């Protein structure tokens, strides 16, 4: 019952995003600020994590493909599929929830307990529209870009490690990357990125916005924001895979 009540409250919260809206000019500035905050602050982490994930995937795939009749380019083909379908959009969404989601929740939670949100409400400003909508829009815009960066870095990391350690030749790696490439996987990854960007931002904002209490509760809200976002991302990942990838 409590779970259903929470879901209902979340959807009412989403509905309030579009009530008593502020002007486009106001939102434009806020969205740009949020994009810079999300994009610039996260890009280094994304590059670092993705490069290593790509490198490790190459080494581990090579380790598992021991049969002599399997051509080496299969290694980079497997790395490509793993990266595009799962590592870049989904695994990085978990990193994204930890980095950006917790920050959004902490930010809104602090604003709530220091009465900054009340100050907005008392001025007749819809605080959900003013504070949360720009975060969600910025997240939907920036997360797909981060996923693209992440994919490129993972494949580059795999290439570097594969070539430097002699697992496979550069031409074999490139051949594997291009072999039997289905461009729908990119579309699928971007659909996932849009969905996860929305889920992480909206759930984290929701958890932060309804924080009550003090500093301790802000921390609890941030933790809940990350765990709930991750669960929602994994659930959505399955639903999208079932809907878009399963054979008819």
């Amino acid at each position, binding site marked *: 019952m409590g779970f259903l009540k929470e879901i209902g409250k979340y959807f009412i919260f989403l509905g309030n995003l579009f009530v*008593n809206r*502020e002007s486009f000019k*106001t939102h434009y500035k806020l969205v740009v600020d949020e994009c810079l905050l999300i994009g610039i602050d996260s890009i280094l982490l994304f590059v670092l994590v993705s490069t290593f994930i790509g490198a490790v995937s190459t080494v581990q795939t090579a380790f598992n493909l021991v049969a002599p009749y399997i051509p080496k380019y299969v290694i980079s083909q497997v790395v490509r599929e793993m990266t595009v379908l799962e590592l870049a959009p989904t695994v990085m969404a978990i990193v994204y929830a930890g980095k950006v989601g917790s920050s959004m929740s902490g930010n809104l939670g*602090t*604003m709530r307990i*220091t*009465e*900054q949100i*009340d*100050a907005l*409400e*008392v*001025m*007749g*400003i819809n605080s959900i529209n003013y504070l949360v909508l720009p975060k969600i829009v910025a997240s939907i815009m920036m997360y797909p870009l981060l996923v693209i960066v992440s994919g490129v870095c993972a494949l580059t990391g795999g290439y570097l490690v594969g070539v430097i350690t002699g697992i496979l030749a550069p031409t074999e790696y490139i051949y594997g990357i291009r072999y039997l490439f289905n461009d729908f996987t990119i579309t699928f990854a971007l659909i996932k990125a849009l969905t996860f960007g929305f889920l992480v931002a909206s759930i984290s904002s929701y958890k932060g916005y309804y924080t009550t209490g003090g500093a301790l509760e802000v921390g609890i809200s941030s933790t809940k924001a990350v765990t709930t976002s991750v669960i929602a991302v994994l659930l959505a990942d399955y639903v999208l895979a079932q809907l878009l990838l399963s054979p008819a």
Partner: protein
Amino acid sequence: MIEIKDISKSFADKQILKGISGVFEKGKPNLIIGASGTGKSVLLKCIVELIKPDAGFVFFDNRNFTEGNKSLKIEVRREIGMLFQGGALFDSKNVEENVRFPLDMLAVMPRDEKQDRVNLVLNRVGLQNANKKMPSELSGGMRKRVGIARAIVNNPKYLFCDEPNSGLDPQTSILIDELIQSITSDYDTTTIVVTHDMNSVMGIGDNIMFIYQGEKLWEGGKSDITHSGVKELDDFVFANKVMIAMRDKNAGH
């Protein structure tokens, strides 16, 4: 003028406000006093509907705020200035941006005019050179003064102050009280101040409402408060040694 009728509010099983009624007049500070935890701040938040009351009505100049539609609520709220207990300044904005915020969001005027208005109110609260400071660089008293500047920048008809003196030294408290009083009379606002500070009560308490355990027990002016005949109010007023000394002196002990 603000009128409240039978305001009640409960949280879970605990009734915090029990049918409080009263009238707050314009042009002079109206004080809501009482010990900590008696529901003063809850009453203030019920009046501006930051907390929705379970029962009762609030009228702003005879406009029924409680039953009003969304546009009336927005219209009334845009006439409200509020000073929160901790200042509630936006951390990411400097003093000037904080004070200009209501103008940016609610007023239609040229940028220069907004800047003049911001400088005027910062001057009014004695913060001429603090424009570019961030809230984290301000003392408690300065934060309160910036909060007051932000509350009055848009010429509000109604001014609400939640514990304006909490955490301040006596001298700064007196400054804040004098500021609230002069703003109220200069701008002819309807001002409601929630406090448990007896210095404020004796300084600016022209119209006082005493709340005890969620009920209004007494209403009057500062000249009557020492001989109200209400035991709970006497206990509250004479918990302060200065007030006891004053009473004893008046009684000729």
